[in-house]
């Protein structure tokens, strides 16, 4: 077997207990980033389609700022900004930064799918005597959510990989551990190869689960 496989294997076997712990941290960051991002995204999407100029402007400002600045800057900003005001662990500062960042993108995903629903659906619902709220919650939104799932899944995968950026504020996730391992072992190539493998496997598992879910939705409808 070529030398490189042997050394990578050695690095892997030596480091996996630590990496498994770091994987849990990465998954936690991702989960919080996604859940928080979905909640924020939904709120801002509804603000954008609300018809109220004020709410639309607030949503537009938020989305413009978040999409117009790098995530790593947002993480630093939140970390140094919020930690000044409240005592907060760097884990939570990072998780919230991921959520706030995702919220802007998810808002646009939701807005796009809600506005993509045929206006006839809304008209049919109103013509049956359902009010605006019932029409949104029972007719438009369930259909929009279905359409959101593929782009949301994509966004979740981006979040998983983006969570590596919180290494900058010292959260012990996969990348951060790999970085340390590389410095300590003088084996940067092997260490980052192992890091890459962890992300790759996680993304593949995620993609597979997502596809299963999408297929199930298709089956349900057919």
């Amino acid at each position, binding site marked *: 077997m070529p030398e490189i496989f042997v050394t990578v294997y050695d690095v892997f076997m030596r480091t996996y207990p630590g990496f498994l712990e770091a994987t849990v941290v990465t998954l936690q960051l991702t989960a919080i980033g996604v859940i928080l991002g979905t909640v924020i995204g939904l709120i801002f999407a509804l603000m954008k389609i609300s018809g109220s100029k004020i709410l639309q402007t607030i949503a537009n400002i938020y989305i413009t700022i978040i999409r117009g600045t790098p995530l790593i800057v947002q993480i630093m900003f939140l970390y140094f900004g919020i930690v000044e005001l409240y005592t907060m662990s760097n884990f939570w500062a990072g998780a919230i930064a991921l959520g706030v960042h995702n919220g802007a993108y998810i808002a646009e995903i939701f807005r796009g799918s809600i506005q993509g629903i*045929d206006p*006839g*659906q809304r*008209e*049919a*619902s*109103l*013509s*049956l*005597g*359902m*009010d605006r709220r*019932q029409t949104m919650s*029972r*007719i438009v939104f*369930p*259909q929009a959510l*279905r359409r959101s799932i593929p782009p949301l899944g994509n966004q979740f995968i981006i979040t998983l990989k983006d969570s590596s950026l919180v290494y900058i504020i010292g959260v012990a996730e996969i990348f951060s551990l790999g970085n340390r391992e590389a410095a300590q072992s003088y084996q940067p190539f092997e260490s980052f190869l192992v890091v890459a493998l962890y992300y790759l496997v996680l993304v593949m598992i995620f993609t597979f689960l997502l596809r299963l879910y999408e297929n199930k939705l298709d089956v349900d*409808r*057919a």
Partner: protein
Amino acid sequence: MIIGENIHKSFGDLEVLKGVDLHVKPQEVVVLVGVSGSGKSTLLRCFNFLEMINEGKITIDGHTVNPKKDNLTKIRAEVGMVFQHFNLFPHKTVLENVIEAPITVKKMKKEQAKKLGMELLKKVGLEDKAGVYPSKLSGGQKQRVAIARSLAMQPKVMLFDEPTSALDPELVGEVLQVMKQLAEEGMTMVVVTHEMKFAKEVADRIIMIDEGRIIESADPKTFFENPKNERTKQFIQLVE
């Protein structure tokens, strides 16, 4: 049942309805005809407040509607509407489509709504399709489900906006059959359609709309055999 008085409706600078007066009596079947763009569909949509009139008055079942003050959802619940493109809810089964509004609007118990839903599906000949999703139905079947869905709210009047225009020719008959049956049962109906045979057989009155105005209103025999207006004569020649 529906009284429209001096109805004006504009979209931007374009005035689509220029003072329409229409009185639909209980149990009457009124067919609206006219070339496309004449305003007949807009008039129908005004009766269901999917479009808001700019001027004039609409009275439904003795109540003159004030769109600013009245609860429009309540009024819409009493006026059924069937659309050209069916607009069935694709994420719900046929039965769920039918029972959605009775459950959410009328707060009907699910069991009772299901019973009503199945009766209505039987009426339109689709009780065997109760559990399937709309994507599995033909256009004619979809439109019959849409009619059942509308009937589930027990409306006082039914509006049909070109209900067969999106259908393959061989599927038109099954939908018209259901509509004919409804008319025979005494449902008040306003129908926008290009089906002249249906108009002749079922309508009590045919109304010709041209450039936002009513130019002819007569029983089918008079309408086709002895129209007064020159534009109506041209229209009849075109469609026959």
